[in-house]
């Protein structure tokens, strides 16, 4: 279980997180929604230790994430980045098998390649695409490679940062389905950040809305439409009028 308690983070005068409290149960899929620049990515990065919170506590299974063996902690995670964040100088399979080619999870090169090809197949890519370089792939294919890399070492927890941004609706649907299937079959805990409501309904067990630096509403995805929360209502219906100020 991941738990954030009163997490604050500011960049200069910009107070992005102003006391975030959130609980993600093991084996569930939590989607964090919210407008652009509301700190969704910062919250995820705080959990991973990529950004250090100014105050507050983040725990994983009851243990403070800032303490203990960092490698062992990170080995439990996989992450799909918004832009893929694939390494340009490495081929597709080397990107996917990155973790298996070095460090504590190191495997023989042939075995690592075999696992990478299998993971690529799982996300709908062909073995012959394993030797291409990221620059030779379309945006949708890069997302799939990023997804294959995120799941390659069979992590317990997977983070998805805007998995469908920049993709056409059909490819978005494919990625959403893949994310849902993979999370279900691996039994992993998933945290996704997005402002794509189709993704939310396809991926989420639970939803949390981040606004003004705090979790404005949280609950099961089935309760989202009847929440009665004016912020959430405005967001999920994409209305310009409401408590969330829209810059025109």
């Amino acid at each position, binding site marked *: 279980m991941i738990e954030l308690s009163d997490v604050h983070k500011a960049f200069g005068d910009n107070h992005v997180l102003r006391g975030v409290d959130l609980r993600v149960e093991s084996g569930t899929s939590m989607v964090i929604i919210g407008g652009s620049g509301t700190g969704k990515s910062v919250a995820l*990065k705080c959990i*991973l*230790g*990529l950004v250090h919170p100014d105050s507050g506590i983040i725990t994983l299974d009851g243990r403070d994430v800032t303490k203990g063996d960092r*490698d062992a902690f*990170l*080995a439990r*995670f*996989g*992450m799909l*980045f*918004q*832009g893929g*964040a*694939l*390494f*340009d100088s490495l081929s597709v399979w080397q990107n996917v098998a*990155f*973790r298996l080619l*070095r*460090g*504590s*999870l190191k495997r023989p090169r042939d075995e690592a390649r075999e696992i990478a090809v299998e993971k690529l197949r799982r996300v709908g890519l062909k073995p012959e695409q394993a030797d291409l370089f990221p620059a030779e792939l379309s945006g949708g294919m890069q997302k799939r490679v990023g997804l294959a*890399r995120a799941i390659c070492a069979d992590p317990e927890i997977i983070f998805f940062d805007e998995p469908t941004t920049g993709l056409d609706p059909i490819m978005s649907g494919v990625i959403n389905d893949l994310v849902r299937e993979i999370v279900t079959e691996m039994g992993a805990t998933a945290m996704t950040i997005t402002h794509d409501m189709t993704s939310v309904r396809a991926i989420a067990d639970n939803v949390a809305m981040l606004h003004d630096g705090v979790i404005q509403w949280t609950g099961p995805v089935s309760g989202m439409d009847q929440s009665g929360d004016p912020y959430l209502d405005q967001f999920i219906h994409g209305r310009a009028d409401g408590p969330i100020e829209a810059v025109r």
Partner: protein
Amino acid sequence: MKLAFTLLAAVGRHVLAGLAMIGRVALFAAETVSHLMRPPFYAREFGHALVQIGWLSLPVVGLTALFTGGALALQIYAGGSRFNAETVVPSIVAIGLTRELGPVLGGLMVAARVASSIAAEIGTMKVTEQIDALTTLSTNPMKYLTLPRVLAATLAVPLLVGVGDVIGIMGGFLVGVGRLEFGAATYLHNTLDFLEAWDVISGLVKGAAFGFIVALMGCYYGMHSGRGAQGVGRATKSAVVASSVLILAANYILTEVFFSA
């Protein structure tokens, strides 16, 4: 009075910012070196950096040395003829190149080629979240990106300087024999007679220091790159400017040390 305080405050701000910057770079350098003592070591990355920084810089360093050696021979001849000292051309070319011009010009050329490319590469990795991705994949970016490049440059630049010395002396030889009517044997004899081992070694030591500076600045500015194309562009420019200025400053300090020794 108010104007004086405003000016003083502005000077103070810049001095503090400068000192903070020196502190950050020093900590970055210390962290880089500390990774040398702690496994893992990414040999593949090191080998790749060695080729990129050393082997692929050879043409530009070689050409720079060749033309510098030739020009130096002409200038020393022109100056020496005023004192009837034309015969010192071979030895001054050799000493000037090995002690000073070889390492400094070689270092500056490597700074232009390597610091910029390292800063642009790492800066782009930063803005496209590849550095964050490395961390989530349990790989320390300092260990994976910075250490191999800094180590490769520290080892490769002295080698480049050594090769540059030979090519530069060859440039002086070609001009001396072809244009200034020195005998080939006399030219080589004068070169070797007055050249001491320390002349070469001090230049190689400078080369190692300059290589360290170049790669360190490239990595530092890349890792601290701002967002977008403008951020990467600024990081690249800063890396080249900082490494060039630091090379010249370090050259003076090292020369002073060698001179006093």
